[in-house]
């Protein structure tokens, strides 16, 4: 992920005036020494840019380094290597010995608990950044700014309350107001929705999305929840083992994962091991225990004779009467009726592999029945076998 990915123009409409990246990371790395003396890579050579107004989500399982990366950007943790620029100003550079403390990085952060100070009123909470950052401001100016931003996030009437008296939604709005009050155009989010219940979470997420798109600040958002990532992000950075494994728009992450790690982490995937037996134009012909298959290479550099894995999303697997390619016979093992869809697990003949097929509507086939499965070759993504590391 060393290439500075350029943004697709339709993704964001804001911030055209200044296209200089808000955050720029180059080869950032951080290591921990474990108790037994071995070295763990918390962050392992991460590079990417965040454009103005862009919403980037860092997604990964726990321990993948996403929170450490966020805290490194904020200055709450210190990286061992690499460079970080914010608004074009270097705030960290390992070799040049630059390290700007968090209070001088001019960014905002929303914490897991929202971290509203319980002993201060909502007004004082929001006014805090204005009073703390160097510039001298009159009382009237502060009051005007605070009230304006409270109105903006829709809690203009709560100024005199204490945070302890408010609902989760109100707390989120106040935290957002505090983050934006100083005209900040960069907000970091550290799993802010992770300790509220599912229903509230969904509402808060919608609200946050609406605000971000309306107000146009750039955001880096850490989560382990892929639905959240898909919904909020312009671009998702899927992380594993301290590395960014893929950085792309949500649709691309889902439909065109470039590694088995990403393909397995996002959604459900059927994997069938095979060997490349021929190349037919832009298609690969695969030889698997279940029969001959055709697919498209998901990464460059796959060549004849390679051991590979064919990855197929369940919704692309159909139970059919016949097809001209990719026809896989099997026995229905289990049928799960899920309401709008039905999921069938089919054991492929001649293998131990079970493939999940998703069909609309009620079940058609009974357990134990012999069926034929078909996947269009364009939906069979071929990935190298040896690439699950980092999970």
């Amino acid at each position: 992920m060393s290439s500075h990915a350029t943004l697709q123009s339709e993704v964001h409409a804001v911030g055209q005036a200044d296209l200089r990246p808000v955050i720029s990371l180059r080869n950032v790395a951080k290591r921990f020494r474990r108790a037994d003396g071995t070295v763990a890579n918390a962050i392992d050579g991460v590079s990417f840019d965040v454009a103005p107004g862009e919403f980037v989500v860092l997604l990964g399982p726990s321990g993948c380094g996403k929170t450490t990366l966020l805290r490194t950007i904020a200055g709450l943790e210190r990286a061992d290597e690499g460079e970080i620029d914010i608004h074009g100003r270097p705030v960290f550079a390992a070799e040049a010995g630059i390290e700007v403390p968090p209070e001088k990085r001019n960014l905002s952060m929303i914490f897991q608990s929202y971290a509203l100070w319980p002993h201060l009123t909502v007004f004082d909470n929001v006014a805090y950044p204005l009073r703390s950052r160097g510039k001298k401001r009159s009382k009237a100016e502060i009051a005007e700014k605070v009230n304006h931003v409270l109105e903006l996030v829709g809690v203009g009437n709560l100024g005199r309350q204490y945070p302890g008296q408010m609902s989760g939604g109100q707390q989120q709005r106040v935290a957002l107001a505090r983050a934006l009050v100083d005209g900040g155009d960069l907000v970091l989010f550290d799993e802010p929705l992770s300790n509220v219940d599912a229903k509230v979470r969904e509402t808060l997420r919608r609200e946050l999305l609406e605000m971000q798109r309306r107000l146009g600040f750039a955001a880096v958002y850490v989560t382990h929840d892929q639905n959240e990532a898909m919904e909020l992000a312009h671009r998702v950075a899927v992380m594993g083992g301290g590395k960014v494994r893929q950085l792309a728009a949500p649709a691309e992450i889902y439909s065109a994962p470039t590694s088995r790690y990403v393909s397995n982490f996002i959604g459900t995937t059927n994997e069938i091991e095979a060997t490349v037996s021929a190349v037919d134009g832009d298609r690969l012909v695969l030889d698997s225990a279940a029969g001959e298959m055709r697919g498209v290479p998901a990464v460059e550099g796959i060549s004849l004779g390679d051991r590979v894995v064919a990855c197929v999303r369940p919704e692309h697997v159909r139970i059919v009467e016949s097809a001209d390619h990719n026809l896989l016979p099997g026995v229905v093992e289990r049928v799960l009726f899920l309401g709008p869809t039905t999921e069938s697990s089919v054991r492929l003949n001649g293998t131990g592999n079970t493939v999940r097929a998703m069909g609309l509507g009620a079940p058609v086939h009974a357990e134990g029945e012999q069926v034929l499965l078909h996947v269009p070759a364009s939906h069979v993504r071929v990935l190298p076998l040896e690439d699950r590391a980092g999970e």
Partner: protein
Amino acid sequence: MTTMSPASTQTVPISAIPAVKQRRKLSPLMLLSVVIAVALGLLGVIPLLSVGVGALADLPQVIEQLSREDVLGLLRNTIIVVAISTAFALVIGALLAWVNERTDASMGIITEAMPLIPFMLPPIAGAIGWVLLMAPQAGYLNGIIRWFLGLLGVPIENGPLDIYSWYGLIMLYTIYAVPYSFMMCTTGLRNMDPALEEQSRVSGSTLLRTLRTVTLPAMLPSLLGATMLILMSGFGLFSIPSVIGRGAEIPILSVRIVDLLNFTYPAQTGAAIGLSLIVVAFVAVFWWFQSRTLRRGRFATIGGKGQRASRIRLGKARPWVRAAVILYIAVTTVFPLLALLIVSLNGYWTLNIDWAGLNLNAFFQALFEDRATRRALSNSMSYGAIGSIIGIVAVAFASLWIVRSRTRSARFVDGAIKFPAMLSHLIIAVGFVLAFAGPPFNLGGTALIMVLAYLALYIPQASVSSDAAVAQVGKELPEASRISGAGEGRTIGRIYLPLMAPALVLGWSMLFVRMIGDLTASAILAGTRNNVVGFRILEIYQNGSYAQLASLSTALTVISAVIVIAVLIISRRLARWNHQTPGGK
């Protein structure tokens, strides 16, 4: 980076691993905190080292003292009193805690807070109160019992109770020790998952069997912890044996040590060290035993999800259990305080109380007429005020550094600050004499040595509570402040200190109360120039009136109670934002 050859990039990762973690430069504020923390640590370490060095230097005298014949008697007496009272205190404290936590006989604040009162009052006041109650001739309890027996036609002249006896001594030691075991057992029961007990009941065990097979084993760590605390304070306890032990002619180790140091001329330091080492040895042996038992144990008392156990219904026994609890509280707390109050208002100690003639004049006369008493009182107040304010501020800054920086050196300093809690007060006071009283510091008889000794003795507890105060602020609230553009100083001033304030104010009041009620360090370090209440009480006890004693004790008690109650109210006020869950955990 882009032009680097592959060969050189390969060497980068390993060499770039920080072998010694690069640290950010310490800000001036942090530097100050470190200096304070180290100073607090030294306050405990230096006296202990002095005792050790002193023991080596005075070895012949130490050995001579230890081999004297009456040392065995001293030891036997001390062990008997401490062992029996510890056993009683464990049983009583555990029972009170169990009744309060697990049965329907609990009575809210009465059963929750009252058993702790002896803890907050100066033990010397309690001891004198008990003398007034149970002295063979003029003790009020004896008077009441004799009057009652007289009604029944059994006239007696003397007794029947005598505080100056083995049972009197043991009883007072027990009363003083019960709060420790009550506190530890309450915590233990609260942290223990009640499902463990409920499972046992559901599996068909009776209440008693459940207690024996489930509750007690799970409480073992608490009981051991309580034993440790009781033993440590018990061997060093000076107030009670100095009042009761002398009258009962039961010599106790702690009294002998103080005598050797402050009531013998010239002071027999070597002898005192020798005897102090015995105390250290006892505590060390039990400490070893405790940690061995805990390490072997499989009693992780997990759970603690905060769910309350369904309380055991006592049925017909409930009023009786309640009555017993109330009686215990009345006898241990209310009676002696009443006795003190009556004697100080009456002006002298007699069984024929002139109820109509009770007035405050006698009380104030006793306090202020005597110049030495007046001086001691004002000294105690100022030393206490200065010491407690310095103490709580110092401890707050030390905790801010220790809790936030998890370095090895921070943990080491933390240990140095807290370990005096593990030692008997006696040792530290002896160490202070050795380290600071003579050259080069020549602090003997000064206010400074008193304040320093108070700090060394009482800071460990204050530091535990201020650690908790820092920890409870959490990481996110101060981090949010940094991100908002506030530097270190502003974050501490605007976020940490206001959030810690309720706990710090409470901690301050405990420090103040302990310092003005101190007897051990006062008895060893005070003299005519830096007289304090604790020392004055001992002086009066040796050649003064009981009315004076009672007045001084009452004054001490009233001041302590007023301070603690006022501070409880203030601390609630300070935490008014806290009546609902704060946003940041």
